[in-house]
């Protein structure tokens, strides 16, 4: 039985020249978990907001949307869904955990929607108690909302939507702003909601790794249209015949499968050639693992094992050739594959004083609080990209603030090209030396348009206005943001805003660039673009230190990786050695190939290795 049906919906924002949604039709059955996937700006959020009438965007809309038999929008013979029903039956959770919270206490937040529906106090009490018990939030039921962690805030938003007893739950990239552990917790709760309460879920997501195993139906959107719809297998088949950037967002196992089953994938998006490598495998390969599409790491291991047995005489032969292929690449990951060789960039090692040297820094936010950092050290050389990984609350952002001179350590030192940060004269540190891109790119903007902000930033270092303008335009061309210069910083997409913020921090021509979670909320295409830009900067001799949760990104783009744990940087190595040495904190491809193919960091590595193995 269909719960939601969208029929021929077309939508255009005011003053826009193209449709944001074009003739979109889809349906979701009762109890299903459906996923809308696509790059940012493909129209998935717009569609969700049109379904949730209260927050529908302004613009011209046509087409019809039904919830069971009532029309959500569009002229129809069917009865219209009343405002009260819409509030009750359709719940929505958006991306930003912070901005959806209305009141100051958890209990009041849960009661807020029920107050709006006009329920009497005793019924509100009962519903709130039930939902708090379901979510296991008794411990923080009495807390203030601002005391909660980001993950708890998003769970609270989910609980506040669910307390209304909705039949349809809309989720707009709900885990984009969460760290991996909190995101996994959130998905676990979603699974319970689906299986224990039977609530239908429609979720917009650009990262498919984690949601594909749970999804009953996936719709691929692009440019406001639905390109494909069906289960994971159908989607994979679609990608086999139609190359699409979203294929890169698939789980690692699925990407390997896709590459092997005669389709095409984009691999090595940052490789020198930059084009797509098409790998054709022997016809027998896909027969080896049948038609079930692998979605998880364990599925993937199964597939690799079968493949290794079926396709070659021995796995070791494959391994050797895989190693051979890998060493051909200049990438640092190759060195890592040689079991225990810690191989940081040799060129950088020899080049004089390190660009940035953090040695034995200790920091605490208050005398009475425990140390956040207790003797953390790292060095960063010119032309090197260092990725610092670490769990939530491990002090990554604090370390970055210390490295940027925003906070100062109570012991230890931070040196820039051998000079202590504290000995820089006022007004010199952030000119031509050091820059930080904060986690929230919005924080660097103060003006009405991006152009005004950037011009002001460039004027600080340029001799006159004309050259400032010219420099700015040149950089914007390079970052491909020249088209959005006259927009308000809040009117552009997350990826564009990040690039604009990057332009602002690059205005001072820093030698050392610090990045805080640069891939948070950025889609696959945006990540590749960012990597390209960073590669350009590295080639110009800049040194980059990024702090990230994103193991896949670090594996693909870092020269060196470090893990921050218990206030110190431990296990510093090139990505190859670093991730191969970790059992849990590593990439999905590495976990998948562990013990089957050696020296694997990314899906591309697996595909290359297998291509060698295949007869």
């Amino acid at each position, binding site marked *: 039985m269909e719960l939601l049906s969208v029929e021929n919906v077309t939508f255009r924002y005011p003053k826009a020249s193209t449709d944001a949604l074009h003739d979109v039709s889809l349906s979701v059955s009762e109890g299903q978990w459906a996923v809308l996937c696509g790059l940012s700006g493909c129209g998935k959020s717009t569609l969700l907001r049109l379904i949730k009438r*209260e927050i529908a965007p302004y613009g011209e809309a046509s087409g019809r949307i039904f919830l069971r038999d009532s029309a959500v929008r569009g002229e129809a013979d069917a009865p219209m869904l009343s405002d009260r029903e819409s509030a*009750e039956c359709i719940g929505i959770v958006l991306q930003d955990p912070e901005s959806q919270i209305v*009141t100051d206490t958890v209990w009041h937040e849960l009661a807020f929607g029920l107050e709006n529906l006009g*329920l009497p106090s005793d019924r509100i009490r009962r519903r709130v108690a039930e939902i708090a018990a379901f979510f296991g939030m008794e411990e923080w039921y009495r807390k203030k909302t601002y005391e909660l962690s980001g993950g708890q805030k998003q769970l609270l938003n989910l609980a506040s939507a669910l307390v*209304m007893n909705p039949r349809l739950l809309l989720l707009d990239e709900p885990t984009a702003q969460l760290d991996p552990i909190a995101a996994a917790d959130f998905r676990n709760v979603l699974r319970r909601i689906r299986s224990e309460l039977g609530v239908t879920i429609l979720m917009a997501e650009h990262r498919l790794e984690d949601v594909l195993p749970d999804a009953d139906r996936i719709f691929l959107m692009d440019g406001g249209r639905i390109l494909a719809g069906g289960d994971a297998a159908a989607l994979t088949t679609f990608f086999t015949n139609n190359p699409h950037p979203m294929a890169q967002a698939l789980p690692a196992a699925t990407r390997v499968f896709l590459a092997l089953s005669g389709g095409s994938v984009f691999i090595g998006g940052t490789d020198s050639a930059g084009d797509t490598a098409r790998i054709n495998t022997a016809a027998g390969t896909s027969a080896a693992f049948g038609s079930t599409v692998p979605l998880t790491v364990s599925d993937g291991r199964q597939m690799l094992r079968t493949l290794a047995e079926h396709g070659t005489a021995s796995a070791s032969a494959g391994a050797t050739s895989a190693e051979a292929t890998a060493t051909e690449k200049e990438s640092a990951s190759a060195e890592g594959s040689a079991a225990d060789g810690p191989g940081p960039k040799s060129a950088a090692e020899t080049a004089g004083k390190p660009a940035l040297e953090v040695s034995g820094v200790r920091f605490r936010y208050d005398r009475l609080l425990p140390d956040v950092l207790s003797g953390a050290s790292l060095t960063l050389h010119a032309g090197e990209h260092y990725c610092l990984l670490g769990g939530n609350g491990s002090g990554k952002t604090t370390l970055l*603030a210390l490295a940027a001179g925003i906070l100062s350590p109570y012991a230890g030192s931070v040196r820039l090209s051998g000079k202590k940060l504290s000995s820089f004269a006022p007004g010199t540190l952030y000119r031509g030396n050091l*820059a930080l891109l904060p986690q*929230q790119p919005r924080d*660097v903007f103060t003006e009405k348009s991006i152009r005004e902000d950037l011009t002001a930033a460039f004027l600080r270092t340029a001799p006159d206005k004309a050259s400032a303008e010219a420099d700015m335009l040149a950089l914007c061309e390079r970052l491909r943001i020249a088209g959005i210069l006259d927009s308000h910083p809040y009117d552009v997409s997350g990826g564009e805003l990040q690039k604009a913020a990057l332009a602002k921090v690059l205005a001072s021509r820093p030698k050392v660039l*610090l990045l805080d979670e640069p891939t948070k909320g950025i889609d696959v295409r945006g990540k590749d673009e960012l990597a390209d830009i960073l590669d350009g900067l590295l080639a110009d001799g800049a040194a980059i230190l990024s702090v990230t949760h994103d193991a896949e990104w670090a594996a693909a783009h870092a020269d060196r990786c470090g893990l921050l744990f218990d206030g110190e940087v431990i296990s510093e190595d090139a990505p190859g050695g670093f991730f191969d040495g970790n059992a849990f904190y590593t990439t999905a491809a590495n976990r998948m190939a562990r013990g089957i193919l050696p020296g694997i960091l990314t899906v591309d590595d697996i595909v290359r290795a297998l291509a060698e193995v295949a007869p």
Partner: protein
Amino acid sequence: MTIFHNRHPLVLLALLLCVLLPVMFAQSPMLTAPALLGAVLFLAALGIRSRSVSLRSIFGYALLWFLVTAINPLFSTGGATPLLFISGRPYTKEALLYGAHLGALLIAVLLWFRCERTLVPEENRFFLFGRLAPKLALLISTVLRFVPLLRRRAVQVRAAQTAVGVYDDPDWLHRTKSQMTTMSALTTWSLEHAIDTGAAMKARGYGLSGRTTYRTCRFGTADAAILSIILALTAVTVLTLARGGLHFDWYPYITATTPDRLAVCGTIAYAVLCLIPFLSFLKEEIRWSFYRSKM
């Protein structure tokens, strides 16, 4: 530690008003003394219990009292008994004593506001507001969420602005200017945030007719009992005041009406009222030590 944690906020509001209004406007030491005593006993008991008596705040109150006492005769020349003359103006005994009383009264009022903080759990503070003015109460609730959020955001925005060189110059003029930039960036962020929160409110049915207010507190029989006691005691005090029983003249000579039986009753009634927080603290202490000894 909140003794009155389970009491209905109406009871607490009544207690606070019934203590504060008479003492603030009667200007009689017969009321000021018990008000001060009640607040001091309660706060001291709490301080000793939690082992956190702040010497600095005691010193601060003493200084305040001393200042008000010493300064009042400079403004007021009403008394008839000059102690000394400052540039031809009399510095009188009556004005000095009036100042001493005024200082004590001021401290009593301030201390009662402090008691309110410990007596009323924060979440109940706006409960009565919620019943009378639900929209304002909702507005207040959102502000109480926003303020800590904005303070945290201000730190982040400042860090971001620092790293793009906004806070480069150390002098105060530049610092103020940079702070204004932070404030401006904070405004942009929070206004957009407000729009998003507004959408989230609408998504959860804000604006539908017939909104109710979730009541977490119930007015029970115990509340009714305590409220009647408070009102009865206050009635006695007000009656005494109305009859002029506690009348006290400061100028030109300090004269008090000789306390009759009613005045004594009024003072006692008021004193009992002021001691309610302290007495309930004692009751709780005794109850718990008894309870613990049985375990």
